[in-house]
């Protein structure tokens, strides 16, 4: 019987090709916008998440806002290191300085750090080495640069050719000892880290001498001790700092990457929901279109309904037939819409470099479910109208 109603529905959908297509159009557009919008948002959000968690190591960054006259020093940090859940600790002072090599001058981001910073931030060295303990002790003027510095400022062919070369940072001469490995980044990563090109890492101690950097530390980063969770490390650090700053929670600020990810995810989830609901409304409008056409169809086919009832169709048979028709229209529309959005997303994936927009199975299931729901709900009224007809009245219709 189900097969028969399917066949009948198909005959009817096929019999009115143009009308069926126009009816489907509402669902096609609805499903298309739903899947495309949600897929784009979720792809971008995945990409941001991936970029952030890949580029950012599991660290807690500390900003001292008010040191209450007791600024932290390198000794304080050393005392903190490897106690309890806290692993490595490194100061992290960042400022912008002109970098010069030959006749080329650019603005570089200079980070004044300790050797442990490499481990904390999981910095990968492409060639040469990172800052070492002797550099700190001797206040050596060495610098570790990002690959774009070697390419665009020093103008060397390969990054390793920059090792041993000289650059001028804020008027002081530095020897390049290491180059950071260059990683392939996708569109979103480039966007996120666009402002952070020409990175230079110099020893903290050297910065104090060369750039009149004060001894006290306003910003530093820690990692968790091996086998300890970052959250524990953060709590412990928080307790320590609270004690030091007389219980003033406003004196410092702890920032970890998970917090940042959580807030990014909240934003993208909201965005996804918002766009999804807009697309959902267009699906709903498509459903009203189905109801409209089905009502016309019921009126047009009054006589057919009469004949069917006269030769023995029950109310439920007629109801089933018309419901099947609206379900078929909405599901066909859904299929076309999915196909269309698959095509558009594939096109977009090849158009935007290093970015892939995928049609997630969840979204496909959601749109199929929503479409059938709409087909059934908006088909119910016309189908019931047809089923309720009295056979003699329906037969009399011309």
């Amino acid at each position: 019987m189900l097969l028969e109603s399917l066949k009948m529905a198909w005959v009817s959908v096929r019999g009115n090709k143009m009308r069926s297509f126009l009816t489907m159009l509402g669902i096609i557009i609805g499903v298309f916008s739903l899947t495309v919008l949600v897929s784009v948002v979720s792809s971008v959000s995945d990409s941001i998440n991936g970029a952030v968690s890949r580029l950012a190591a599991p660290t807690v960054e500390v900003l001292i806002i008010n040191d209450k006259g007791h600024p932290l020093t390198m000794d304080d940090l050393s005392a903190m290191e490897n106690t309890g859940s806290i692993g490595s600790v490194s100061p992290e002072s960042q400022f912008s300085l002109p970098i010069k090599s030959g006749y080329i001058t650019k603005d570089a981001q200079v980070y004044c750090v300790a050797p442990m910073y490499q481990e904390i931030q999981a910095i990968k060295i492409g060639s040469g080495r990172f800052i070492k303990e002797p550099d700190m002790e001797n206040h050596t003027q060495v610098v570790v640069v990002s690959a774009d510095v070697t390419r665009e400022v020093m103008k060397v062919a390969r990054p390793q050719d920059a090792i041993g070369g000289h650059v001028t940072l804020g008027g002081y001469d530095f020897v390049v000892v290491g180059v950071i490995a260059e990683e392939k980044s996708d569109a979103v990563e480039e966007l996120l880290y666009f402002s952070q090109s020409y990175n230079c890492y110099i020893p903290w101690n050297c910065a104090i001498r060369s750039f009149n950097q004060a001894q006290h530390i306003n910003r530093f980063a820690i990692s968790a001790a091996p086998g300890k969770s970052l959250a524990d490390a953060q709590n412990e650090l928080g307790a320590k700092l609270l004690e030091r700053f007389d219980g003033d929670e406003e004196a410092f600020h702890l920032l970890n990457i998970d917090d940042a990810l959580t807030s990014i995810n909240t934003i993208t989830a909201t965005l996804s929901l918002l766009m999804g609901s807009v697309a959902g409304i267009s699906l709903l409008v498509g459903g009203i279109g189905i109801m409209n056409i089905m009502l016309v169809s019921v009126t047009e086919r009054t006589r057919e309904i009469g004949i069917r009832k006269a030769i023995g169709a029950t109310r439920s048979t007629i109801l089933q037939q018309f419901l099947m028709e609206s379900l078929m229209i909405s599901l066909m529309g859904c299929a076309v819409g999915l196909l269309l959005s698959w095509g558009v997303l594939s096109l977009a994936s090849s158009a935007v470099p290093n970015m892939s927009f995928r049609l997630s199975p969840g979204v496909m299931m959601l749109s199929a479910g929503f479409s059938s729901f709409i087909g059934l709900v908006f088909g119910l009224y016309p189908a019931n109208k047809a089923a309720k007809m009295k056979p003699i009245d329906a037969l009399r219709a011309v």
Partner: protein
Amino acid sequence: MIILKDVSKIYRMGDNEFYALDHANMHVQEHEFVSIIGPSGSGKSTLMNIIGCLDEATEGEYFLDGQEIRSYSQTQLARIRNKKIGFIFQSFNLIGRMSAWENVELPLIYQRVPVRERRERVAQSLERVGLYERREHQPNELSGGQQQRVAIARAIAVEPTLFLADEPTGNLDSHTGEEIMGIFRELHEAGNTIVLITHDSGIASQAQRRINIMDGHVTEVD
């Protein structure tokens, strides 16, 4: 087989009551070929609708095959129409978008006859009316006489207790009408019960027995 006892169909318009059927009494026995004759407006369509379980009587009792029809629900009535009655209408009442085969098959689908048996019965019925070769044609590709034969095949396929024909030759020329009447005679000879409603006494006289209807009053003539 068919027994009507004091059956009335009353239409109320405001305070007026109109008897489309006024205490009608009649009976039809098994294997009988009965014609009901009356001019238009005599109530014969109302009678046919009641016999065919398309409409319910306001008063009186109607027995079909020994069962009283009154107490049935819409769904039960649909099942009775489906299994017991083979309708043949003046305007053929075939479904336009479906082939001759599909039209004949439809009541069997509603009966949930299994596919294999269904195929056999549809083929036999179409052969019986001589239209097996045209089974893939849609009604608008067939002549009036052929359409009516498809309608008869649809009734035959059901193997009904009663063939109920309402002016089956009304829309056909006399020659084609004669062909159709020939099929009815054959059906009768094969032992089927037929009730034929007409306003044409020439057609009516081909039945075994006539029942007259006039202004809602039924008189049986033996």
